[in-house]
């Protein structure tokens, strides 16, 4: 067991454990709504039109930037709409989505299989396969995987994050119990792609079955399976690296900067599917849990399936519910169960509706300071965020906050501390954005002034030149005229002389 575990964090027992590790396959839905907006990397560009027939796994939206990954049809059928629809996001802003009406056949496109012989593929080919399979970080962050793999130079360690980021979520646990062979193979593929020397699969010590099943299939001496103490936020990549390797990733840097690559176990399974089976990312495992369902379970659902059709299989009770996408700590509260599952939907919490606890004044107990896993001072951050003094908050390292929610969880006054930090971060982002815009405007204004002045001086110069040329020409003409007049005079004079 590890001794250098990070400071802070909290231990929360799983409130609604899923007893049966079996993954229930949800049949392909009648209608799939696929979001084009990526959490990181902009928006994919649709390459189909309304009315087009598509097959499962077919690319329906292409990439718009290097960070973007393509989107694949998750069912076969007809494109019925390409428009703005509500998505599970705290802002409630609609985003572009593609809707597919199923034809009920679930017919796949022809898959380009690599087979078991991935070692003969070059790392670039594997990275390209990862990109074209549309894989993003499945732990919830949604960072494009191909960027992560290709950004790391001289990787020394590959960390597979199997810690299950938050209490309540069980999807990674069931994934490991059901697909241990695929996960080990996926790790091998990643090892080959990033040419790291070793890989560590990190599992929290409360997942004994998952640990055992991975151990049974691991025959590669480059791969170790490491148990770490169960403590919330141990799944945050920088903290996980600290626990496993006892190195700290400097503030403002990524794990890749110190030669460590960290991937979620779900991502590793998706990489296996993409490289070995040629199967793009069209489904994912979702935990449905909470006080509002009788039968919390893990489901494998196609992307674009509505929350409601998955939740209905977990026997929800008749009470009014509070729905949350993601975990109980870092998830997003949503107001309806009609949203669709996307690549980062690891969990759907269905809780019985309870009134929000009364928010009181901060009593300066500093419990938040003690639980913060990255040693920030949430209390100080709270004062400066609340008064919108963003500069002050930045001095207290606001941008290092991982929004884990430990501080809000322990606050005896029920202050939603993290919400304040999210707010302050958004304001800071706007300020940076505005400053950038102002800089562009200043540059363009100054260039325009310079250009107008330059044009004026050029024009004046040209006019002066023309004037000079004209004057010279006129002087020349005058000379010529004078010469002619002289000659005429001479001739007439000589004529007069002759006459005389």
């Amino acid at each position, binding site marked *: 067991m590890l001794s250098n575990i990070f400071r802070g964090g909290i231990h929360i027992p799983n409130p609604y454990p899923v007893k049966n590790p079996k993954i229930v396959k949800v049949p392909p839905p009648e209608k799939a709504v696929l979001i084009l907006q990526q959490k990181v990397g902009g928006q994919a560009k649709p390459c189909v039109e309304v009315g087009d027939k598509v097959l499962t796994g077919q690319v329906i939206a292409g990439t718009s930037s290097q960070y973007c990954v393509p989107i694949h049809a998750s069912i076969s059928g007809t494109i019925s709409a390409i428009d703005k629809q509500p998505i599970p*996001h705290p*802002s409630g802003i609609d985003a572009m989505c593609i809707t597919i009406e199923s034809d009920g056949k679930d017919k796949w496109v022809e898959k380009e299989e690599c087979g078991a012989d991935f070692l003969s593929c070059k790392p670039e080919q594997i990275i390209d396969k990862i990109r074209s399979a549309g894989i993003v970080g499945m732990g919830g962050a949604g960072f494009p995987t191909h960027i992560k793999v290709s950004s790391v130079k001289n990787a020394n360690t590959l960390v597979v994050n199997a810690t299950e980021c938050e209490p309540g979520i069980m999807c990674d646990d069931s994934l490991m119990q059901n697909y241990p062979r695929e996960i080990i193979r996926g790790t091998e593929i990643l090892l080959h792609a990033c040419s790291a020397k070793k890989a560590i699969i990190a599992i929290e010590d409360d997942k004994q079955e998952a640990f055992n099943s991975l151990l049974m299939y691991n025959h590669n001496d480059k791969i170790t399976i490491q148990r770490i103490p169960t403590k919330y936020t141990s799944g945050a990549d920088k903290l996980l690296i600290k626990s496993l390797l006892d190195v700290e990733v400097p503030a403002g840097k990524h794990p890749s900067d110190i030669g460590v690559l960290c991937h979620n176990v779900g991502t590793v399974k998706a990489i296996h599917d993409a490289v070995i089976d040629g199967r793009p990312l069209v489904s994912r495992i979702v935990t449905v849990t909470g006080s509002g369902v009788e039968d919390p379970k893990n489901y494998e659902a196609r992307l674009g399936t509505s929350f409601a059709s998955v939740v209905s299989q977990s026997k929800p009770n008749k009470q009014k519910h509070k729905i949350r996408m993601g975990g109980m700590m870092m998830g997003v509260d949503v107001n309806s169960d009609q949203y669709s599952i996307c690549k980062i939907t690891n969990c759907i919490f269905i809780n019985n509706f309870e009134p929000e606890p009364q*928010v009181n004044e901060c009593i300066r107990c500093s419990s938040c300071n003690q639980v913060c896993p990255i040693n920030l001072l949430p209390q100080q951050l709270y004062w400066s965020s*609340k008064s919108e003094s963003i500069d002050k908050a930045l001095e207290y390292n606001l941008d290092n906050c991982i929004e884990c929610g430990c501080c809000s969880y322990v606050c005896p006054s029920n202050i939603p501390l993290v919400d304040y930090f999210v707010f302050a971060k958004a304001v800071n982002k706007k300020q940076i954005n505005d400053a950038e*815009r102002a800089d562009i405007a*200043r540059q363009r204004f100054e260039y325009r002034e310079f250009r107008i002045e330059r044009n004026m001086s050029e024009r004046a110069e040209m006019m002066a030149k023309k004037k000079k040329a004209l004057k010279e020409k006129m002087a020349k003409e005058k000379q010529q005229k004078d010469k002619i007049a002289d000659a005429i005079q001479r001739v007439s004079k000589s004529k007069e002389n002759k006459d005389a």
Partner: protein
Amino acid sequence: MLDSILIFSILTLILGLILGYAAIKFRIEGNPLVNQIDKILPQTQCGQCNYPGCRPYAEALAKGEAQINQCPPGGQDGADELADLLGVEQIPLNTEHGETKEPMVAVVDEQVCIGCTLCIQACPVDAFVGSSKVMTTVIAKECTGCELCIPVCPVDCIDMVEIQPTLGTYIPNIKDIAHA
């Protein structure tokens, strides 16, 4: 006595030379205060302050010829920041110069545009793309929302629209957080 005079004269000479060199080497071009003021101004280049742009206004402020409350796009916050920088008292914005509005962007109704290029000439930041007798459009990223193109358009085909928040620029409402 004599040697102390000698030591101090040499010392003075050396230090004088260093100071003289530094004055040439680290000479600051222009008035640094103008740059500081210009940094606070929103760079809308709208001319509502009665100066032909943000920098001319900054120059006038540095000379003490203008008031700090003449910039509506900067808002009250901007005016207060200027007061702090210049060490003068905070005063409310002068409404004669216009009112503070939400950030806007110009949008051309391309069906109506006749390609007269008047807006291209009026735009202080070259945010228009077009040429004579062809359709003109706005580079939204570069438009400052100064509205200088509105009065010059002969067919009234330019509209100012509020910039809508996107998923990337969304800011939660702090009042909702406080009452949660």
